[in-house]
């Protein structure tokens, strides 16, 4: 545990991505199984211990320390795990100095321990560990590591152990389980590559670049297929046969999170083995509903029959990554599209249909279609169209955001996806709620990508959304400076806000160099990880366009 704690401690301070990788890879090299496997599980968020709650930690410290001293300390430190780790008084029962627990011991014990035995066990460990160990233990059990390491980064560090492409690890990942001894065996060249036995695994998604006017000059319309850009949620719907030949179907978010449970009504439609890339929408009486309607179905814990009936789910398919046993990702998009059309026909389910292509032969024709989707084929669904997608006919399906393959061309040029960075309480009827938001976009910093604030917004959201953001702010505050809360804004943790604005101006008063006119929150993108938010370069290009 102490070696793992040392790693977490070091990672928490290390800003550079490459140095983080080195620290993690170094740990994997140095530490044996199964400890390193549980460490990988912790870093990828694959561990959770349902009984360990912050309230339990408070009770433990209350039984050992003066409440006034704890109160003053907590107020100063601002983090429960850290306060407790720092001020934990050594127990008197430790005459024989038992060795501190290993990480494996902690993980395996916590998995089997009942709720009533947990406090005593935690107390014993806290007595045995040093400060960093206690901090790491409390972070681990309460599930809030917050050390700026994404699951992807941890997997990349593991891949580096065997000089493998992180993508390879990503592909077999869904079939693996802690402590990943088979994975490490393969990475160290001692064993065969583990097979992904998951019948319905997630495939890393392909993303599009925002297109700029200048880009069109070098693009030939003949090379591209255009589709509507639907205002829903990007999902991957995967079905496969398990070892007994039964179909397993799963729905994944764009980041690979399994969201099947939220949409049980779509599962029966996925009755053929395959992997569809598409947009999740609400369709009532054959008409696609706006994103606001879809949002009312999202993030609900319980999916009631009433909810299913009022918000009928729909999958609009635009790509096929696998057809039965065949991986189609190496095929050109045009071929995959042909496979997709056949596949959707075979499925024959009203809940899944094909995203139509937009016919065009010149960029002018596409511009006209984008300006008026209703008369260009989108018909009554036009309200749910937020632009067009351009996909190269010959593009294979590549994970990430490969250059020049897919383009997105949104209808409103003055919309960006920004990341919530700071929040302040509002005034008047919004006092006590965090309703003033500072948001930022990505830019190249000294230590890699960093967020730079580009504006502030305090309207545009509904009262319901205000409650949601307020809750998010309070639960995800990393620091407090007077009335200002720093809200978690890391590549994989944070809230993406879609910000609409009327114009852009240069500003020397802002660090980013730009100022927005009338920015407002147009939508909450709970589905989007912060790393996919827009970049400052996008704004700078808009600025040039505005000037011209």
């Amino acid at each position, binding site marked *: 545990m102490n070696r793992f704690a040392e790693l977490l401690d070091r990672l928490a301070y290390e800003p550079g991505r490459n140095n983080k990788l080195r620290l993690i890879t170094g740990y994997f090299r140095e530490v044996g199984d199964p400890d390193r496997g549980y460490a990988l599980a912790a870093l990828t968020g694959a561990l959770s211990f349902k009984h360990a709650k912050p309230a339990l930690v408070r009770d433990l410290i209350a039984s050992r320390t003066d409440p006034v*001293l704890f109160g003053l300390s907590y107020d100063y430190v601002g983090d429960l795990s850290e306060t407790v780790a720092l001020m934990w008084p050594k127990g008197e029962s430790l005459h024989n100095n038992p060795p501190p627990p290993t990480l494996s011991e902690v993980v395996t014990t916590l998995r089997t321990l009942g709720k009533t035995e947990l406090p005593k066990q935690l107390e014993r460990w806290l007595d045995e560990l*040093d400060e960093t160990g206690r901090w790491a233990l409390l972070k681990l059990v309460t599930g809030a590591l917050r050390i700026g390491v994404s699951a992807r980064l941890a997997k990349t560090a593991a891949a580096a152990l065997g000089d493998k492409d992180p993508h390879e690890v990503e592909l077999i990942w869904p079939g693996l389980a802690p402590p990943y001894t088979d994975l490490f065996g393969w990475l160290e060249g001692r064993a065969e590559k583990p097979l992904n036995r998951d019948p319905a695994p997630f495939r890393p998604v392909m993303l599009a670049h925002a297109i700029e006017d200048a880009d069109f000059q070098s693009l030939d319309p003949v090379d591209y297929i255009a589709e509507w850009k639907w205002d829903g949620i990007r999902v991957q719907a995967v079905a496969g046969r398990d070892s007994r030949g039964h179909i397993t179907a799963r729905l994944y978010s764009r980041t690979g999170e399994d969201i099947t449970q939220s949409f049980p009504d779509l599962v029966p439609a996925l009755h053929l083995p395959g992997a569809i890339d598409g947009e999740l929408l609400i369709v009532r009486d054959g008409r696609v509903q706006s994103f606001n309607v879809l949002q009312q179905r999202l993030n609900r814990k319980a999916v009631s029959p009433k909810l299913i009936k009022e918000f009928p789910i729909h999958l609009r398919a635009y790509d096929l990554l696998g057809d039965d046993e065949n991986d189609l990702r190496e095929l050109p998009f045009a071929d995959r599209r042909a496979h997709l059309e056949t596949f959707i026909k075979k499925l024959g389910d009203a809940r899944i249909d094909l995203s139509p292509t937009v016919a065009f032969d010149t960029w002018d024709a596409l511009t006209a279609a984008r300006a008026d989707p209703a008369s260009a084929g989108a018909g009554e669904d036009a309200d749910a169209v937020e632009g067009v997608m351009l996909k190269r006919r010959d593009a294979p399906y590549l994970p990430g955001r490969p250059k020049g393959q897919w383009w997105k061309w949104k209808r409103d040029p003055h919309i960006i996806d920004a990341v919530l960075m700071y929040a302040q309480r509002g005034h008047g009827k919004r006092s006590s709620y965090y309703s003033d938001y500072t948001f930022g976009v990505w830019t190249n910093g000294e230590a890699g990508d960093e967020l730079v604030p580009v504006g502030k917004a305090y309207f545009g959201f509904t009262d319901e959304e205000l409650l949601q953001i307020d809750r998010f702010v309070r639960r995800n505050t990393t620091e407090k400076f007077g009335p200002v809360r720093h809200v978690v804004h890391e590549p994989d943790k944070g809230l993406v806000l879609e910000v609409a604005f009327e114009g852009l101006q240069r500003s020397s008063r802002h660090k980013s160099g730009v100022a927005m006119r009338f920015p407002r929150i147009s939508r909450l993108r709970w589905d989007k990880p912060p790393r996919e938010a827009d970049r400052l370069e996008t704004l700078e290009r808009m600025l040039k366009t505005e000037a011209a």
Partner: protein
Amino acid sequence: MRPQDILLPTAAGLCCKPGGFHIDPVRPVDRAVITHGHSDHARAGHGAVLATQETLDMMRLRYGENFAGSTQAVAYGEEIRLGDVRVKFHPAGHVLGSAQIAVTCKDTCIVASGDYKDAPDPTCTPFELVPCDVFITEATFGLPVFRHGDAADEVKKLLASVALFPERAHLVGAYSLGKAQRVIALLRAAGYDAPIYLHGAMEKITHYYQSRGIALGELRPVMGVKKAALAGTITLAPPSATSDIWTRRFPDPVTAFASGWMRVRARARQRGVELPLVISDHADWDGLTATIAATGAGEVWVTHGQEDALVHWCRSKGLRAQPLDLVGYGDEEESEPPAAGEAEA
């Protein structure tokens, strides 16, 4: 005699009326008794200054020859009569030359401990426990979250990082009086014998330490050294310099900071410190409480720092305790370090 008739907080600092002097005055006074050389305690412009030889030398180094009207050096253990009181200096273990000042009037003894630590430090005389009736303690780290471990382990952490990143420079922020020399001495004790580089602002005081017989090994000014030659080396600099453009002369520097504040992670992150080294020249919580108890004092006055928690603790142990509202001490540690690199902790 009531203790407050012997020593009383005033705007200029702690005033001893029967003795006719102030301890560590923050404004110019006729007669000053100074505990140690840090700039928040030792200021220029007093009439007469009574301090240890080292403290006087440091003041001279910093403020020039005419920093006071007259000076008088006093040795540890030497007793001096000032007015109606007797004054005696005892080692405080904070930095070279630092002293606690015991003021005795009739049969009441008050110890003004200045800044102190009870942890070992190869660069200064160890802290001496002085039994007294009233103990005046600092509270820089007066919260139970501040527990400073063995400084040698922190230096091991630094050396492990140097081994892990041999192509990077390690830049250690350390207050230029005391902390820097202690870190160097600890590095030497850990077996590190390569040259250690110094920021220009540290040279004078560090050479003074060497002149007092403290072995610090080979030290080199960092100025003028080629960037590539600094890979794998350790440089000590004032904390303010480690976040300055000055750092561009180093190859991919790892920023370390040696301070008791580094115990709290947010403090390190706010400063952009990658390698926090918990090395403090102030007593930690356990040190403060153990020292208070050991002096046998029935009354405790708590100054600069986290007074609330320490006063609460004293009272819970049945001691009379009160915060002393003295201003002007330790401020540099809480705020951003001043540009001149003169902050100390």
